[in-house]
């Protein structure tokens, strides 16, 4: 008998939570809310996908929130003030953020420093740099912005599958393929299993480290562009604390912080669970600022405890495989 996989359990927890919310607020069970869930969490889904790679490889990236912030400011200024065509600005920022991630990865590898701290410095740096660019929020009026934010596939029931939600879904799927089907993905798991061993087995640990952080920053850059579509503006204080949200999403999605295990789909479910909690609280609408926080904490606990409990239950019959001894 094979127990339920943790991924399936997370999905069940999500659906159960959704059902419970819908019982209390029937409005929740609409394609509109589902569309909103995807749109509102698009940038989170994208960064969390990148974060999944980092965490599976045994690292962590605290800089992503700041990179999003920097990206929004940079893009807004480039388009509005410096007169750069939007697409050129996008390419420029993606190159810039990828280079930023690569630099962090290189420092982590070459100087053998803890990723937590290197990326913490990266977080300060990117946020500080966006302050230097502009402390004011900069509205973006380029036509592409209204085109993108107006674009949406109508779902039955009035819900909108917006462009940024589609981008997010594409990245999640792309990320999942990259992680689970390619050599790069296998190496990510190898790194998380044990760096030294992976190196002895011939994995180019240094190159991989650089690439992984590059990927995470690149995704943060994409998330930043999406965020700027989302708000049609650039603002140096945007996405503060998103690093923790995305780490939480990754971990709720069943990825081990110690590395070596996890999946992009799990992360996606984690993002949705967090979005659910928020939606529920918004629908309730009677909670004070403090009860909002407390309720978020309690729901977070409930989801994780439920999920862990179920996983433990599924593993209960430890029928260890007795192999065919030669």
């Amino acid at each position, binding site marked *: 008998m094979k127990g339920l996989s943790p991924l399936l359990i997370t999905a069940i927890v999500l659906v159960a939570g959704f059902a419970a919310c819908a019982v209390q607020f029937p409005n929740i069970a*609409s394609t509109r809310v589902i569309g909103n869930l995807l749109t509102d969490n698009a940038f989170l889904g994208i960064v969390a996908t990148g974060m999944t790679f980092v965490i599976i490889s045994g690292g962590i990236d605290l800089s992503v929130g700041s990179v999003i912030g920097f990206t929004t400011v940079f893009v807004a200024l480039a388009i509005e003030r410096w007169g750069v065509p939007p697409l050129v600005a996008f390419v420029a920022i993606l190159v810039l953020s990828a280079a930023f991630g690569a630099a962090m990865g290189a420092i982590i590898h070459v100087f053998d420093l803890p990723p937590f701290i290197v990326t913490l410095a990266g977080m300060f740096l990117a946020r500080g740099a966006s302050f230097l660019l502009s402390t*004011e929020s900069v509205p973006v009026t380029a036509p592409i912005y209204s085109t993108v934010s107006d674009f949406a596939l109508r779902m039955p029931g009035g819900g909108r599958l917006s462009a940024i939600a589609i981008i997010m879904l594409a990245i999640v799927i792309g990320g999942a393929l990259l992680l689970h089907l390619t050599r790069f993905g296998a190496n990510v798991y190898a790194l998380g299993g044990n760096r030294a061993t992976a190196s002895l087995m011939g994995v180019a640990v240094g190159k991989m480290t650089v690439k992984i952080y590059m990927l995470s920053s690149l995704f943060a850059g994409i998330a930043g562009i999406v965020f700027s579509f989302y708000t*049609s503006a650039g603002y*140096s204080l945007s*996405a*503060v604390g998103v690093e923790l949200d995305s780490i939480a999403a990754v971990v709720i999605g069943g990825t081990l912080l110690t590395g070596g295990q996890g999946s992009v789909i799990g992360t996606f479910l984690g993002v949705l669970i967090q979005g659910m909690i928020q939606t529920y609280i918004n629908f309730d609408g*009677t909670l004070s600022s403090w009860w909002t926080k407390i309720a978020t904490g309690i729901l977070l606990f409930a989801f994780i405890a439920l999920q862990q409990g179920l996983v433990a239950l599924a593993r209960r019959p430890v029928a260890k495989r007795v192999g065919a001894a030669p």
Partner: protein
Amino acid sequence: PANAAELTIGFSQIGSESGWRAAETSVSKQEAAKRKVNLKIADAQQKQENQIKAIRSFIAQNVDAIFLAPVVATGWDAVLKEAKEAKIPVVLLDRDIDPSGKDLYLTAVTSDSVHEGEVAGDWLAKTVGDKACNIVELQGTVGASVAANRKKGFDTAVAKHANLKIVRSQTGDFTRAKGKEVMESFIKAEGGGKNICAVYAHNDDMMVGAIQAMKEAGLKPGKDILTVSIDAVPDIFKAMVAGEANATVELTPNMAGPAFDAVAAFKEKGTVPPKWIQTESRLLTATDNPQKEYDSKKGLGY
């Protein structure tokens, strides 16, 4: 057409980063109760994305109107368009948003934070006369639009007087603890405070911290060093009563009251309110009976 007594209004509040904000929330609730409005408050924990999510969920719940205290001036077009499509009027509280979206909301009930800074600056200029005066400034959170505006207004006012000079300016994050810490360093950096003639703080909380720092350094705030700040929270009046603070510019926490009235009038009679309902920025000093102000504000949830 909804009857005022049955109105359900969603309020996307920024968070509760300060006493003033808590007061705004509790005054809004009081005002709603007075008018029998069903007010749903969603707390955004300082994040624009949360506010957008909240507005979307208000739209999904089909509320009668949405109040928005925007955390930042930009980035509301898309979601406000959705509200408009759903024919839900939006009222901005406390801060304005960028011009491109003027037709997207019904009205804005706000104070003018640039003007607040000016009022503070003008008071200082008048009080100092033509004595040379070195000012230190405690800024709000870097990047916050209120901070930028209050700085801009004050700078404009001060620029008109050659004898006034801002010698140091650093962020105190709108908090007491940072206000105190930054003031401590200002005092050290400016010859033990002897070179400082006045402190301007972007909010009262920072000023309360700064006052403590001055006292601990053996200076007499309010006398050796003049103080002027913004918000008019109860504790600053306490300091005024003790002679340790000089002036504050009031930012009323009652933004929701006028907004309710505007929405009710719009819903019942179709009256379109003016685009901007500006609240008053009163200057309050030690001569304005601070004790009375303190007593009247104490119960408002600051």
